[in-house]
């Protein structure tokens, strides 16, 4: 565990942010989400929009949680590298890897980042559980309530709890 903490500390030191955004609670994240989904990243492609690069991420929906969702969902994020050589990288912008399993809360709107809270409504499924951009584990506490920072927990139970939270909005 100490090694993990050390590694996370090292990674934190390696990151540098400038992009600013409002810190949101879990309740605010779920309240503001138009779309909520657990899925697998199937494709990541960059396209030009008005000459600027946007990265289009396509997910296969494993479990729809909120919003009108089909079998797949595509979200566009500002930034990427065009064939012209133009490279745009937004500090703090979520990045995606094909094959990754992700849980996300998103706006149904063409924002620079459609993720609620810029990057706060995004968790990647790892061996430790659902990890957010701050390396926190989405968890269930002893009372069975979802928390943004805890010891993790059963993936299915977390998804069920999140689904209920979204239904009760």
């Amino acid at each position, binding site marked *: 565990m100490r090694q993990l*903490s*050390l590694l*996370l*500390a*090292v*990674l*934190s*030191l*390696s*990151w*540098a*942010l*400038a*992009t*600013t*955004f*409002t*810190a*949101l609670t879990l309740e605010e994240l779920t309240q*503001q989400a138009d779309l909520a989904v657990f899925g697998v990243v199937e494709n*990541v492609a*960059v396209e030009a929009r008005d000459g600027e*690069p*946007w*990265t289009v*991420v396509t997910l296969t929906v494993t479990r729809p949680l909120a919003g009108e969702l089909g079998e797949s969902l595509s979200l566009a*994020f*500002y*930034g*990427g*590298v065009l064939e012209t*050589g*133009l*490279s*745009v*990288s*937004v*500090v*703090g*912008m*979520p*990045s*995606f*890897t094909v094959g990754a399993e992700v849980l996300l809360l998103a*706006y149904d*709107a*063409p*924002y*620079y*980042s*459609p993720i*609620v*809270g*810029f*990057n*706060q409504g995004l968790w990647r499924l790892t061996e430790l559980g659902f990890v*957010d*951009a*701050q*390396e926190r584990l989405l968890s269930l506490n002893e009372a069975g309530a979802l928390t943004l920072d805890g010891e993790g927990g059963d993936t299915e139970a977390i998804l069920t709890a999140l689904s209920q939270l979204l239904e009760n909005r």
Partner: protein
Amino acid sequence: MRYWPVILLLVSSALALTYRVDPRGGPLDLEERVAGALAAWAGAEGVEVTARPTQDAATVIGYGSATAFGPDTHSLTVARTEAGRRALEVRLNPASPFRERALLHEVGVLLGLSPSDRGIMNPRFTHDTPSAPTADDLNALRAQREVVPEDVNRDGVVDFYDLWLLAQSFGRSGVNLPADINRDGVVDRADLALLQAAYIFAAPAETPPATLARPPQTAPPAALPEGEEAP
């Protein structure tokens, strides 16, 4: 179309930065507001900041599209490379109620500060976010001038732990990466060479410095490795 260029020079340190201010897409008083933000940071004792106009700055402070920011985002820092020329763009959300605080934060970054989990350098804003640099923020700016760039973890000695941090972020690109010793936006062999030249060869301490042993900071991830497929 009119550009309002500004040069920012941190006197008596190796850090010298050049800026342009572009007020298109938002309130036209951006030049004055940038000057105000600079003045707020210049209040740190022992820190001198001067600003002068220039035409060819690679760093631009301007506005983004208000409708594209969404309700949560107050500013973006954008690294752009086009035709081999690297540029850094700060884009403020013209509709954000935190616009002034975002500008203060971004100017702090441009002065070389890394984000923190406190004060104006915390990129995650709440209603408790201060409207001016705090004593901690100003101390961080002052301290930055007192540590050699090769001391990546800023513990006062260039040693194994600095090398370790550099190795962990080797290949990354971004803004104010601690291991980007020459401040060219990427952690590479040039930084390793600088660290090697300053390295004090000794057995590492049995316990890591506090900056390594502390819990993870609250700052979310940022700087992407060069060429990574995502934005």
